């Protein structure tokens, strides 16, 4: 046990410093072989289907005149602003609501447990039916929402897809509807991982709900919260289906986001390089988010 345990206990740096010859004749040699074999499918996957396409994309989008064309393009400016607003609004709203709701679902009531089962339905439902349904709900006078508003309250609902900000808001709400349950469950698991004795101790000290939330839940879940917000923002920026199916870019392509614009340029406009350029132009925003994400995840592993 001792030698192997020392290697494990000493951690990665110590393993690295071992002279290469020590790996070969004994267990370590075959161990290294096994470890490399285990990681090979993963590495092959990443190289063939991620790294190679990324390099190819950089090569396709390497022409600077493409970006000059984008800057001159009014559709591009609108799409960039829409993407930023959508990601900022939807990611933050979704995380905050999910954090609060996870507290609600922690309550031990049978009906709350039953509600949680129903609450997961939007997550279980595939994205396309969900967004198609939202599209038909909001389609105007014939849509469910406006006709229900009229029948129930006598209110004439707006034409949801005739105004840019309203249509973009519909996209955001649809996206939130689809993914809120997922993040609620993530935070629910995070809250369950908090040792219950902390809350018991706080109870004995007379701390109320708000204090327990601020002084136990918030500090322990901050890291998870930041990681999730970053991930959600990244996923929203890369999401095609919500905008494409709910508003479809209406009115007059004013609610397009970078993801839909890129695909439309490449496949409908037969200009793949311009499409790639649209997507590459999002990288200056995306890479910092990913760096924060990776730092945060590293930090947590050090803490553990």
């Amino acid at each position, binding site marked *: 046990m001792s030698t*192997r345990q020392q290697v494990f206990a000493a951690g990665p740096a110590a393993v690295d410093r071992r002279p290469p010859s020590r790996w070969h004749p004994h267990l370590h040699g075959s161990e290294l072989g096994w470890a490399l074999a285990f990681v090979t499918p*993963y590495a092959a996957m990443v190289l063939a289907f991620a790294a190679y396409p990324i390099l190819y994309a950089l090569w396709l989008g390497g022409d600077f005149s493409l970006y000059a064309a984008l800057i001159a393009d009014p559709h591009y400016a609108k799409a960039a602003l829409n993407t930023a607003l959508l990601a900022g609004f939807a990611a933050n709203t979704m995380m905050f609501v999910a954090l609060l709701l996870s507290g609600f679902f922690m309550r031990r009531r049978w009906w709350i447990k039953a509600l949680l089962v129903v609450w997961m339905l939007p997550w279980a439902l595939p994205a396309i039916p969900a967004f198609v349904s939202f599209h038909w709900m909001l389609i105007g006078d014939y849509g469910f929402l406006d006709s229900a508003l009229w029948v129930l309250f006598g209110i004439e609902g707006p034409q949801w897809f005739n105004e840019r900000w309203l249509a973009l808001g519909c996209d955001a709400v649809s996206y939130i509807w689809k993914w809120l349950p997922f993040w609620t469950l993530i935070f629910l698991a995070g809250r369950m991982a908090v040792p219950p004795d902390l809350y018991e101790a706080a109870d004995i000290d007379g701390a109320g709900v708000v204090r327990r939330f601020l002084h136990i839940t918030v500090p322990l879940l901050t890291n998870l919260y930041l990681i999730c917000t970053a991930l959600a923002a990244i996923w929203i920026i890369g999401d095609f289906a919500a905008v494409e199916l709910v508003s479809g870019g209406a009115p007059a392509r004013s609610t397009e986001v970078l993801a839909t614009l890129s695909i439309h340029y490449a496949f409908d406009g037969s200009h793949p390089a311009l499409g790639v350029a649209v997507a590459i132009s999002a990288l200056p925003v995306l890479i910092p988010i990913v760096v924060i994400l990776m730092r945060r995840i590293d930090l947590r592993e050090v803490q553990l």
Partner: protein
Amino acid sequence: MNGGGVRRRPRCRLRRILVEAGSALLGLVLLIWALLPVYNMLLIALDPDEGETEFTGIIWPDEPSLNSFRAVLTEDHWYLENFWRQFGNSFYVGLLTMVLTVLIASLASFAVGRMRLTKARALTNTALLVYAIPAALLAIPFVRLTQRYGLSDNVWAVIAAEVMFAIPFAVLVLQQYATIIPLELDEAARIDGASPLQVYWHIYLPLTAPALAAIGTYALLLAWGEYLYQYLLLSSARNWTVAVAIEQFFDADEAPWNNMMALAIIYSLPPIAIFYALRRYMAAGLTMGGVKG
């Protein structure tokens, strides 16, 4: 009860009633919020002709008709000609994505997290970078490269794409989850002469099973629900998945919308069933993580 308790009681009770009423109200709002789009789908699908979507003030439609569901199941419209074939394709893509994601991610995170293959740690981090690239940026070069790999109009190209999207998150979850499993278990098995493969198979896989179930479900739902790549990579109707088939209705001005919604509902049933079948398992895994961590 002592005196203090009695004195505090009325205030406590009022507060408790308010809290209960508040959470009941919140529960009702959440219920309506979660079910409304699903209900809208049902309303349209049950409409006898074309899918009139207006709400007339009645909770249930006047003459609900299962005609649209029959049309889908019997492929009784030229939009639905290849329904069963496409349904099978969706299943094939979903299941293979699930199996491959679980297998590749668990092997990689075992090597990195348990065997301490440190150089692979950098690899895990670079895989996170996959998230930095919007699906749309990768879509254009991906479509071209799969043609170069000889996979144009081939479901395997779609499977590769879905596995690639599911894997970084799967690796993260697994590495996180595996920290609650003591390394001493691995070491004890190794001293008894178990090979790394045996440790992986007999210790790592069973103990991470709840996380694997969660990852597998995640990968399956992702592959079943994703549509951009399926739409771009599959060109012939026989190779389409159901996701692409639903999208085709949008290209027409006058399509049978009730059939489209029926198709969408049928398409939603398998992932929902699998999700709810594995839900307890997933919940058990999550709480176990909490108790042990």
